[in-house]
């Protein structure tokens, strides 16, 4: 039994947690539950009634050919984008962590695209990659005597082009996270490695990379989660085309929503939940193994 006094003592603490908790539950937890509920309902913009429809929405999902494309594109985007970012950002951050002239300028330049809106970045690259006579990149390509490449109009390479645009935009962010981590790796470790006769390459693999484990983890986890949310860049570059080949889960969901198929869009939301849970589990598994390997 709690005494009255104890309860009174914890009251101010409860009150301080309450606003955050209330907002989080109202605008995050509750909508999730109600989305799950409405995925079993026939809810459209055309009929006033919302009626229970069992698994109808999910059956429709299974026969929806764009769904597989959307899930595949979303996962491909999330994984490849985050890996490429780190492949560029990690060595660059190591270079900028040394006593290099102008390193603050390099750092400021590389980070710059991360403050631009992704929507605008997409429009900009749409012009740079265009096959029309003003497409800058194709001007460069043809000046070497090569054929134009229809980066965003060819379904086979459009997703790759979108991924590269986003690597361009975000590798600087990943780099800053690695830089923050690098500052906390003790010089002693490098000195000890030097005493053992390690060269620069060995130091990189045996001191730097293990020391960067926290930042690698952060970059992969946050990068993949935000990769799953890929939306703005697709809207502004291909809008899911050509022939739905660059649709992602969220662009498909928005289309269903705009069409007024709310219940069906809710089922897409549940697919999204399943995909993100799957990816989180895989990531956690990989990190657990890796950490055991490091110990």
């Amino acid at each position, binding site marked *: 039994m709690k005494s009255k006094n104890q309860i009174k003592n914890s009251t*101010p*603490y409860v009150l*301080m*947690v309450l*606003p*955050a*908790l209330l*907002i*989080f539950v*109202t*605008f*995050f937890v509750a*909508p*999730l539950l*109600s*989305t*799950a509920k409405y995925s079993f309902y026939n809810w459209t913009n055309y009929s006033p009634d919302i009626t229970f429809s069992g698994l109808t929405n999910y059956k429709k999902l299974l026969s929806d050919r764009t769904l597989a494309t959307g899930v595949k594109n979303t996962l491909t985007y999330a994984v490849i984008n985050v890996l490429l970012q780190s492949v560029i950002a990690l060595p*660059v951050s190591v*270079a*900028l962590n040394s006593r*290099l002239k*102008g390193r603050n300028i*390099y750092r*400021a330049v590389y*980070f710059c*695209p*991360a*403050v*631009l*809106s992704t*929507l*605008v970045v997409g429009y*900009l690259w749409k012009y*740079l990659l265009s096959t029309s006579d*003003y497409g*800058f990149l194709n*001007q460069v390509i043809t000046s070497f005597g090569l054929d134009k490449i229809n980066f965003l109009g060819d379904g086979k390479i459009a997703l790759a082009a979108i991924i590269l645009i986003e690597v*361009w935009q975000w590798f600087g*962010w990943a780099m*800053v*996270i690695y830089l*923050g*981590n690098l500052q*906390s790796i003790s010089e002693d470790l490098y000195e000890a490695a030097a005493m053992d006769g390690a060269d620069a390459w060995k130091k990189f693999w045996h001191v730097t990379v293990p020391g960067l484990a926290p*930042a690698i983890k*952060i970059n992969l986890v*946050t990068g993949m*989660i935000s990769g*799953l949310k890929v*939306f*703005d860049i697709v809207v502004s570059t291909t809008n899911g085309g050509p022939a739905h080949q660059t649709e992602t889960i*969220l662009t498909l*969901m*928005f289309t269903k929503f705009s069409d007024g198929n*709310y219940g069906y869009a*809710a089922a897409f*939301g549940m697919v999204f*939940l399943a995909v*993100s849970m799957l990816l*989180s589990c895989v990531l956690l598994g990989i990190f657990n193994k890796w950490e055991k390997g490091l110990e």
Partner: protein
Amino acid sequence: MKKKRFCYQVILHLVLLVLAFVVLIPIYYLVVTTFKSGTEAALHPMSLPSSWKLAPYAEAFVKMQYPRAFKNTLLITVFAVVGILIFGAMCGYVLNRKEEKRWTRAVFLLILSGIMFPYQMSILGLYKLIRGMGLMNNMWSVVFIDIAVNLPFAIFLFKSFVSTIPRELEEAAKIDGAGVWRTFWTIVFPLLKPTLATVAILNTLTIWNDFMGPLYFLQSREKDVILQEVYRNIGQFSTDWASLFPMMVLGVLPLLIFYLAMQKFIIGGVMSGSVKG
């Protein structure tokens, strides 16, 4: 040995310079093209413009109803960021100081789920909720959603920062007769400054550049934000260069200025926000 080191430095700079050009050329192109005609942009994409007329900007400014859209974006960002700072700091403080209690641990676990899962999956439930509350086309819908979505990470940062603050000061204040509330605001809150700055910077970038939230919940034109104006107008005039590129620049200009002015703080904020996270 020295010569080898010099060679290495030269090669390193070359690689870094090429990368810097790859980053900067598109941004340079974005800016100079605003002053060019379609033909000039196609013929001389990398040259400086032949004239620096600002008329296209004035036109884009009017078409986008820029002052109104700017005001909407600014208000949403300011209210959401302030909400995240105040509610996040209070909650993170208690979750650390009362860590041994079962209810705080339960709250923390619940809130952590908000970091792992993208809120976009529940957008239909949100749509229903916002409509039910009568908040459609009301900026508070986006403000509340932005707070809810970004609070978890902020709470996480505040909680771990509070754990580095010694409790002695609070105990001294308690002996002087200050309550929990006053102790928090007069003693703890000012000490949270570094994390407050980090959280403010990270969230300003995210919320200002959020396109999807407003797209779903602010559908009437008077309520929309800058990015929706870019979206609306580029959809309409997709070949009209003269008004298109200035709109794109106007779309990114506020944060670009913010970045140029506060570059060190912003990069520092991202750095510290992530290492603790």
